[in-house]
């Protein structure tokens, strides 16, 4: 279960590696139907990344966050030791979203209309149960708002506005931009991933490599 989404990211990478072939690809009908429902409204949204920890922490890391069972496992089972470094003021973690499917695109876009101070809580809720993302992705693209709304409910955004956010070209463009920056900067499309100093840790199966990278970075700063 923990490895379910690895092949998806590989598929994306393969497409990027063969742009000539990809140009001939047709947009599948479900995507056409979805995208035709998108709006160009000018909707204010939170374009800032989630920052966990003290802004002056000696080490800054990046958490590439996906709506996947793997990210769910990481946040729910292996995050406590990382949180200790955050709470102690040693680590600042910048969270960046990595959409793996068009379900994720809609979800991350919807979350951008939640108040910035609640953004991390919504992301945590979205992966609090590893089945949430799986259920959403087993359903059609058009039905994604039903699943996303259940993750957003209670965060001060009415359903009608939430759906407009999920399918807004500017907000979805912002989510896609994050995917491009992660791919172009750190060369990965795998979520979860962590970047600590010069170390890229993709799809970790425990927190040990992350903690080691944090402690190595702290030692490097101390020298």
């Amino acid at each position: 279960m923990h490895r379910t989404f690895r092949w998806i990211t590989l598929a994306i990478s393969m497409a990027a590696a063969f742009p000539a072939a990809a140009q001939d690809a047709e947009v599948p009908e479900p995507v056409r139907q979805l995208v035709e429902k998108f709006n160009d409204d000018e909707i204010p949204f939170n374009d800032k990344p989630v920052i966990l920890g003290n802004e002056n922490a000696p080490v800054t890391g990046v958490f590439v966050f996906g709506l996947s069972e793997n990210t769910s496992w990481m946040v729910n089972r292996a995050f406590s030791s990382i949180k200790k470094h955050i709470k102690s003021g040693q680590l600042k973690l910048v969270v960046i979203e990595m959409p793996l499917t068009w379900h994720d695109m809609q979800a991350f876009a919807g979350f951008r209309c939640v108040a910035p101070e609640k953004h991390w809580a919504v992301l945590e809720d979205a992966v609090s149960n590893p089945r949430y993302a799986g259920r959403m992705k087993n359903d059609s693209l058009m039905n994604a708002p039903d699943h996303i709304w259940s993750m957003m409910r209670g965060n001060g955004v009415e359903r009608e506005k939430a759906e407009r956010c999920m399918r807004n070209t500017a907000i979805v463009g912002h989510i896609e931009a994050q995917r491009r920056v992660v791919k172009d900067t750190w060369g990965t499309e795998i979520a979860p991933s962590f970047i600590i100093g010069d170390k890229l840790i993709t799809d970790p199966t425990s927190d040990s490599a992350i903690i080691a990278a944090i402690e190595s970075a702290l030692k490097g700063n101390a020298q």
Partner: protein
Amino acid sequence: MKALAIRLSGAVLVCLLSATAHAGGGSAPSSSMGAGSKIEKINKHAVKSVLVVRQLLAQNGAPGIKP
């Protein structure tokens, strides 16, 4: 079935993202011009947002991001 559904979802994203560069062009069937136009807009927004995202990451000291 679950694996198939996930595989399809992944393929959907692959196809759309790879199509962004030329979507909305003259070769698109007339019935899909609405989708092509939207895809083109998403792509334009993404190109602009890349600069914003990089700037915000740099401001926050993300490793590997040059200001």
